[in-house]
């Protein structure tokens, strides 16, 4: 399978702080990548580099084998609507719908109309007066109706109600199936979105902490819970990503897969071993418990 996006050893620094630090990853063509991590993890910077809106300080980014920065034919195949996207003064929805097809050769008027209707976007109110959810809805219209071969959706759910989020999922999956493309979606609503992802990348402090296919997520870590003393003993010599303790009881998210010996010893000590959810994994990688160097191997 060819890669739509290829990133090699990319760092991006703003002043003294590094938004991305030596990131290497690839996104296969025709897949949906979940880009996860805490605020400030580097997700938007990653998308900005892919969309040619920024240049890496070092390393390189390729989209369909070309560097996107100032590359007209590549940029015509990419759309990236920021969560804080700015619109021209006095723009309303009709202005957006009039100009977007000029830039997007695959623009679907039907998808746009369906989303506008389903997300209940007002067409006469200036965009400047839109609520947070309505701004997200406009971003979704632009992102999906453009049918860009590389679609970057940055926190598309912000402010959306539950009905709108479900509607967005339905349209996304249906249109993606009919018109396959490469989608990168960043979100904090991990549980709601994880069914969409073919692959998941977790960023933290500008580094890739996890880069695996969705079906490999359960093998990346497990949760050990039970009496604190038992959990502490069983977790010793293992990489604990995060732990929560209430008096007498501890729950620890541990890197790697549990072996048979651990399972039987946990049973003897009254502790439970359970599989980790993607949300627990994202929270654990962002917990600042483990030295980043210990996590570099968490990739498949």
């Amino acid at each position, binding site marked *: 399978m060819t890669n739509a996006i290829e990133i090699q050893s990319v760092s991006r620094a703003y002043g003294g702080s590094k938004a991305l630090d030596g990131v290497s990853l690839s996104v296969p063509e025709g897949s949906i990548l979940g880009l996860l991590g805490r605020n400030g993890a580097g997700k938007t910077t990653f998308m900005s580099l892919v969309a040619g809106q920024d240049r890496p300080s070092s390393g390189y980014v390729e989209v369909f084998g070309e560097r996107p920065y100032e590359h*007209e034919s590549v940029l015509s195949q990419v759309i990236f609507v920021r969560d804080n996207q700015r619109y021209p003064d006095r723009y309303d929805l009709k202005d957006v719908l009039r100009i977007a097809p*000029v830039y997007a050769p695959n623009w679907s008027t039907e998808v746009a109309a369906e989303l506008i209707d389903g997300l209940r976007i007002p067409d006469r109110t200036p965009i400047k007066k839109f609520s947070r959810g309505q701004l997200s809805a406009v971003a979704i219209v632009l992102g999906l109706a453009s049918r860009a071969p590389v679609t970057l959706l940055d926190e598309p759910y912000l402010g959306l109600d539950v009905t709108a989020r479900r509607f967005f999922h339905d349209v996304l999956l249906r249109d993606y199936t009919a018109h396959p493309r490469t989608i990168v979606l960043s979100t904090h609503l991990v549980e709601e979105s994880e069914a969409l992802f073919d692959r998941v990348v977790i960023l933290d402090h500008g580094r890739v902490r996890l880069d695996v296919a969705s079906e490999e997520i359960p093998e990346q870590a497990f949760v050990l819970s039970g009496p604190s003393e038992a959990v502490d003993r069983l977790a010793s010599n293992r990489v604990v990503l995060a732990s929560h303790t209430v008096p007498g009881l501890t729950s620890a998210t541990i890197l790697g897969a549990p072996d048979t010996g651990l399972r039987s010893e946990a049973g003897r000590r009254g502790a439970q071993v359970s599989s980790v959810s993607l949300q627990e994994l994202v929270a654990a990688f962002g917990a600042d418990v483990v030295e980043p160097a210990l996590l570099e191997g968490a990739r498949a």
Partner: protein
Amino acid sequence: MSAIVSAVKLHLNRRRQVFLVPLWIAGVVGVISVVIALIFWRGGSQPGTAEWIQSSRSNPGIIYALGGFLVYLGVSSVGTAYPFALMLGSTRRAFAIGTLAWQALIAAYVAVVFLVLELIEVATHHWFVGFYAFDIYVLGAGDPWRLLVIVFLGVFTFLAIGAVFAGSWVRFGVRGPQLLALGLVVVIGLGIAIVVPGLGAIVAAFQLWWLAVAAGVVIVLASLGTWLFLRSAVIR
């Protein structure tokens, strides 16, 4: 080329602001001029007299009124349209060239509109009652070719100045326009200090075409500046 055309279309997409607001402002200035003329009329001035024509033609209100809006339009054409254009997939180069082409287009549009209004004004003997809104000194005193050049270069200059200040803001944040303004004040101040000893001779030798050259220089420098700011501007 198509990317540049797309950038022009992006700017033209704000139809009301781009096409109607200049007309609206010109109309408001016309109405205000008429009201002022009425006051003078009621005060004893007689339409058609040499004094009336002289004072009516000296009214530069259209420049002040339209100038402010055009600088704003230039600012917003970069300040808010640039991030939006990049989101849609424009290159910086296409956006900068498209913005320049759009500025020229709008300057030509306003020039033609003003020419038509001036021709109507002259043909109707100044709106049938001796009111002067476009047949004024600052717009060439009735010379249609001069009006075309003045309005075209004037509008182009205002838009280009607005764009370069917005470009500095996009590139450097709030410090950009501040430093650019400071730099301009220093450069213009030094320029005046250099030429002031010979100012009398310069004024005596002044030719109107100098202003056209000055406008051309401002447009070129502002457009180059806009490009230099935008080519490395990062959207965050």
